[in-house]
């Protein structure tokens, strides 16, 4: 078991800086998810921790020891790759025992550890098969098994579920959560899927453009996004962003309005009257009927998606923007009709334009 510390970690490929100074503390046994859009540097950061990419500048500490120059095998880590990266010429057993064999462990110990991992992952029946004879989910379990047998202090997952279909992805997600509970090891998990991030993580690290945008517990990120990027990235459907003008500021709050947003005071600081700003409201925060609510958005219905348990209403606002409302029941709306959705100002966010 081990904690990690990243201090001003940087990575350059030629003249291009991919990781622009990342500071991060990961405690022992924590499940941390790196999340962000493609090209944000999350996989690169993970590979730097693994030792597969050199660190251009900054320091990486695993279990208190600086390991910038250490070989991957000396870092006490194991990694599960997106493509599984199983050795196609070896059986499941040999795939899982490869690292232990290189380590010259006694045969009995290797056998015991592989059997144990196979039991945890329900792979006992498949130990003599080759990877080509396995389904996608089974291959993924073998890849995880290969990591488990080495008893690493840190598990690294690089988008491990993105090659699986939706149903299997959900099963494997729960399996990984169970594994974390069972093994108690530190896990770092890279994904671009925010549902995986929200459900698995103790702590989410949102990355964009090689920089950490926010670090925090999933619900904290959902409720208090530090900036517009995080607000837009976490939550589905995406948060609505509406251009507004600040009309008045008071202690810790700002009153905003626009042709489609009725004047409303939201919690904010650092704004002055007359500023352009962006109001963020989650689709789930919108409720039918503006009269009873303190904030409201007007528009015309352009599209209705009825999912049974929920209805997603897409509306074109008076200022020509698009907003989504997720109504938590089945409801009917006439496309083209005028509607007003209300929201609780406490659930709205104000960002600089």
């Amino acid at each position, binding site marked *: 078991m081990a904690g990690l510390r990243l201090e001003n970690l940087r990575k350059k490929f030629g003249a291009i800086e991919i990781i622009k100074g990342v500071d991060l503390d990961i405690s022992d046994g924590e499940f941390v998810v790196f999340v962000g859009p493609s090209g944000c540097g999350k996989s690169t950061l993970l590979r730097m921790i*693994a*030792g*597969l990419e050199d660190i251009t500048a900054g320091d990486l500490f695993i279990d208190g020891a600086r390991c910038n120059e250490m*070989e*991957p*095998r000396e870092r006490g*880590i*194991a*990694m599960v*790759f997106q*493509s*599984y*990266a*199983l*050795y*196609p*010429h070896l059986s499941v057993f040999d795939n899982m025992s*490869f*690292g232990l064999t*290189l*380590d010259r462990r006694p045969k009995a110990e290797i056998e015991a550890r592989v059997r144990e991992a196979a039991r945890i992952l329900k792979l006992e029946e498949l130990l003599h098969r*080759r*990877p*080509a*004879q*396995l*389904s*996608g989910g089974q*291959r993924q379990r073998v890849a995880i098994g*290969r990591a488990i047998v*080495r008893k690493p202090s840190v598990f690294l997952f690089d988008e491990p579920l993105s*090659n699986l279909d939706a149903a299997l992805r959900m099963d494997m997600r729960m399996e990984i959560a169970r594994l974390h509970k069972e093994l108690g090891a530190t896990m770092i998990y890279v994904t671009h899927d925010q549902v995986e991030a929200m459900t698995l993580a103790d702590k989410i690290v949102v990355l964009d453009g090689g920089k950490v945008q926010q670090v925090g517990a999933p619900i904290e990120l959902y409720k208090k996004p530090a900036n517009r990027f995080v607000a837009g990235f976490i939550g589905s459907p995406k948060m609505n962003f509406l251009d507004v003008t600040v009309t008045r500021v008071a202690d810790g709050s700002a009153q905003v309005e626009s042709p489609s947003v009725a004047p409303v005071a939201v919690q904010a600081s650092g704004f002055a009257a007359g500023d352009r700003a962006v109001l963020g409201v989650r689709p789930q925060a919108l409720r039918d009927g503006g009269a009873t609510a303190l904030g409201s958005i007007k528009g015309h219905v352009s599209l209705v998606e009825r999912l049974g348990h929920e209805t997603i209403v897409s509306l074109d606002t008076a200022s020509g923007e698009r907003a989504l409302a997720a109504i938590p029941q089945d409801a009917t709306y006439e496309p083209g009709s005028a509607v007003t959705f209300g929201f609780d100002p406490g659930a709205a966010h104000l960002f600089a334009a």
Partner: protein
Amino acid sequence: MRSGRILVVAGKAVAVAALLTWSLVPIAFVVMSSVKPGQEIFAVPTVYAFEPTLEHYAELWRRWGQFFDGLIDSAIITAGATALAIIASTCAGYVYSRNSSRFLNASVMFLIVVRLIPPIVVTLPLFPLVNIMGLNDTHIVLMVLYATFFVSLGTVLMRTFIDQIPRELDEAAQIDGAGRLTILRRVIVPLAAPGILAVAVFVVVFAWNEFLFAFVFTATKAKTAPLVISEMIGSIDGVDWGILFAASTTQLAPILIFVVLMNRYLVAGLTAGATKG
């Protein structure tokens, strides 16, 4: 429309027949002549119905014992050259596949250019050097020479094969604690086996049949089978064609069997199922 299709099929058949005739007739002639009674070999018109005989082979064994010594020398040199070429090409191909730099990219071009120079031009000036090193008339000199000719082609071939092995496998092995050599030995080589066999086929065929360099660099101790066959032609008591054809067939057989066997491996792809399914 229909007649057009018939014409295409007929054209293909003629082309295949021509190709087969071109490549198989000489071989068939040599093999058949080796088991024909002596006086019927060059009989006009050609005798197709004859009593097969092994007398030429028996005669070859009795009179040309050195031919069989030559076969052994050929086998040793072929094995050595093949091993050398495979080891060098695999190591180099791995480096070319997994690393890139301006120097490496330029040197690939150089490898190919070197291959275009007539080998004898580079080799003959080596003669005094080989002499000084005391390597003249040894197995080693031919092993090294033959291997050298194929390292460039072999490297390019191996690079192509290794390029198809996903890099994640190297990385997974690295995480599993393998060093570069271990990765090469335990991951790359087993998966690049079809490539290795392909390179082996090239080297084996060349080394087994080569005449010119063997003629220049060996005399008695490392004399290969093709040299002995050439002596049969220049033999003072006239050419015994039956023996010559028997020797040629003996020389030809192992290589033919080898290529036919290897042919199956050349096509096999081992990496199926390596990554996403």
